[in-house]
């Protein structure tokens, strides 16, 4: 076995160790160690991505027990590309939001924050690479605990309350997921995805068992849907994302909720299989809930008068897009879902990092009317916000456009008139709604307020710790938008390897 095959496990273990080390270090040293670790995981993941795209997928058996008994790590193109984008987002979110971390988190707790962040990285990597659904459950819970820890690091009453509400919703979700896992284990006697899938196909041959299988996969799906914030379970989102410190908000909206969705996709493809999925009404339900999320999320975003909450509600709409695309069914639908997932990760993290800068220059207010003219006072942040808004709306050349195009093409490919009409109507309505609230905000931040008329704004200087990550995310956004075929081709070959 090549050395590269041990890298995924090494990433997880290094993150865990670095987390423990952070507890012993002072704040600056803990921050440096975390940055090094994020860089290490990113680079190793890029190496594994190259290795899997040249050779093929590989599984790494843990301990000495072979396949049906032992635990396994599995790496393919799809896993690596997802983790790579997650890690790039995190590498950008930590330095760009560090300024606010210093302000909002108590000085004695900076190393704790870094420790929890490392723990979260370990659990994200484990969730992406694991080939065992019970390991998936364990790291799901660790990720929930870690993200709650990152949230309540800012010890403000309302954030602690938001953290508690987030935990309660997530606990309901995890317990439903565990129920699904237990039922699947009871029917098949396996926990590893491949033997579980094979055994499930045999069990499904008995028509009486179909109801139990549908129930098991159904509760598992609902569990992960609650955790990732699909309509109608999205109401914890605005408080959670809107009030946390920017790094946490970017991490939670771009990485945590997406990691849950990826686990669900992996279970659908490797355990249930697309043949069995056709016998269950799951795709239709996902499609309907996805469309619901797209519309209701956008409507809620329009109604709010707080820019942070608007960005958070738009996450609910974007999660809706991902589930809608999955609900289209077929490989093209899932490829489009992953493409949208990546595009949204890149865009939303930048939005959460930029919005606080605009608020800061407007007297720390999140209300729209106070933000008037903020882009004129802070040109770079205004530019970044505009790029994200254009991407979210779906203007050509940005990530949001290419993924929406792929969703549309996927809907065309299934050759079902009803699905195509539903998707095209949802896309049209939501694009109009997105344009309404994002472009409205862009116009507002660029229009002169009375303050500017009285005094000319001094040009604002930003540190490279903010500008470099932000430009990286803009470049990644443009790459996904201008060359979607490259990423989609990789994702498609990744799905081929999943089977």
């Amino acid at each position: 076995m090549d050395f590269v095959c041990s890298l995924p496990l090494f990433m997880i273990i290094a993150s865990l160790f670095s987390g423990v080390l952070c507890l012993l270090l002072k704040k600056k040293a803990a921050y440096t160690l975390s940055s090094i670790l994020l860089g290490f995981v990113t680079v190793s993941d890029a190496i594994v991505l190259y290795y899997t795209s040249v050779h093929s997928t590989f599984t790494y058996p843990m301990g000495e027990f072979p396949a049906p008994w032992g635990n396994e790590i599995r790496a393919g193109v799809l896993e690596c590309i997802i983790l790579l984008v997650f890690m790039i987002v995190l590498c950008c979110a930590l330095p760009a939001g560090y300024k606010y971390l210093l302000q909002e988190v108590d000085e004695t707790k900076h190393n704790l924050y870094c420790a929890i962040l490392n723990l979260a990285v370990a659990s994200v990597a484990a969730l992406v690479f694991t080939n065992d659904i019970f390991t998936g459950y364990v790291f799901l819970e660790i990720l929930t605990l870690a993200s709650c820890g990152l949230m309540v690091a800012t010890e403000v009453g309302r954030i602690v309350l938001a953290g508690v509400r987030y935990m309660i919703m997530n606990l309901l979700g995890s317990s439903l997921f565990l129920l699904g896992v237990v039922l699947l284990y009871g029917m098949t006697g396996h926990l590893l995805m491949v033997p579980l899938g094979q055994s499930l196909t045999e069990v499904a041959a008995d028509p009486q068992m179909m109801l139990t299988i549908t129930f098991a996969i159904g509760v598992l799906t609902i569990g992960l849907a609650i955790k990732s914030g699909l309509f109608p379970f999205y109401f914890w989102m605005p408080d959670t994302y809107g009030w946390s410190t920017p790094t946490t908000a970017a991490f939670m909206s771009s990485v945590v909720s997406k990691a849950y969705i990826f686990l669900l996709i992996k279970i659908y493809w490797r355990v249930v299989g697309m043949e069995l999925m056709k016998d269950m009404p799951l795709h239709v339900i996902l499609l309907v809930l996805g469309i619901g999320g797209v519309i209701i999320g956008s409507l809620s975003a329009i109604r709010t008068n707080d820019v942070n909450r608007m960005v958070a509600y738009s996450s609910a709409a974007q999660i809706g897009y991902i589930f809608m695309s999955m609900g289209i069914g077929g490989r093209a639908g899932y490829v489009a879902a992953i493409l949208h997932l990546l595009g949204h990760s890149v865009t939303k993290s930048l939005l959460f990092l930029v919005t606080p800068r605009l608020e800061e220059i407007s007297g720390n207010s999140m209300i729209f009317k106070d933000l008037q003219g903020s882009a004129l006072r802070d040109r770079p942040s205004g530019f970044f916000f505009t790029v994200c808004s254009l991407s979210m709306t779906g203007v050509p050349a940005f990530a949001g456009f290419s993924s929406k195009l792929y969703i549309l093409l996927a809907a065309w490919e299934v050759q079902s008139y009803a699905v195509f009409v539903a998707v095209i109507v949802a896309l049209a309505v939501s694009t109009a709604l997105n344009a309404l609230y994002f472009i409205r905000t862009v116009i507002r931040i660029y229009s002169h307020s009375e303050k500017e008329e009285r005094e000319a704004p001094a040009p604002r200087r930003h540190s490279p710790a903010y500008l470099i990550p932000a430009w990286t995310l803009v470049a990644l956004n443009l790459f996904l938008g201008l060359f979607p075929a490259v990423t989609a081709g990789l994702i498609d070959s990744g799905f081929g390897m999943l089977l």
Partner: protein
Amino acid sequence: MLDTLLSNYQEAVAMILFVIGFATLLFQRNLIRKLIGMNIMDAGLFLFLTSLGYINGRKPPIIEVQEAVADTYINPVPSGLVLTGIVVSVSVTAVMLSLSIRLYKRYHTLDMDEIYAMTLKEREEQD
């Protein structure tokens, strides 16, 4: 129907516990009650898992002789899963309790709705 339920009474009880816990966690307003609900829910799941692994008339999987026959023992995997699950459940409970203490210290109540109302008031005062 009733026969099936009676013959699988462990699973039936486990599911009833799960639903009770789930509803308590979702609908109770008091944080401590919510936490109790969460633990009942987890207990239901663990009971379900344990009963899956238990096979009537077999011994616990502790091998005393070298030539052990697998058919004489119950399935040890669910027990292992339950142990892992308990660890997860305990840590989640600990975190939730610590958050409840923080909220109680600040707002002097454990009622989620009251706390929410107070946070809204706080925000209005800030603005």
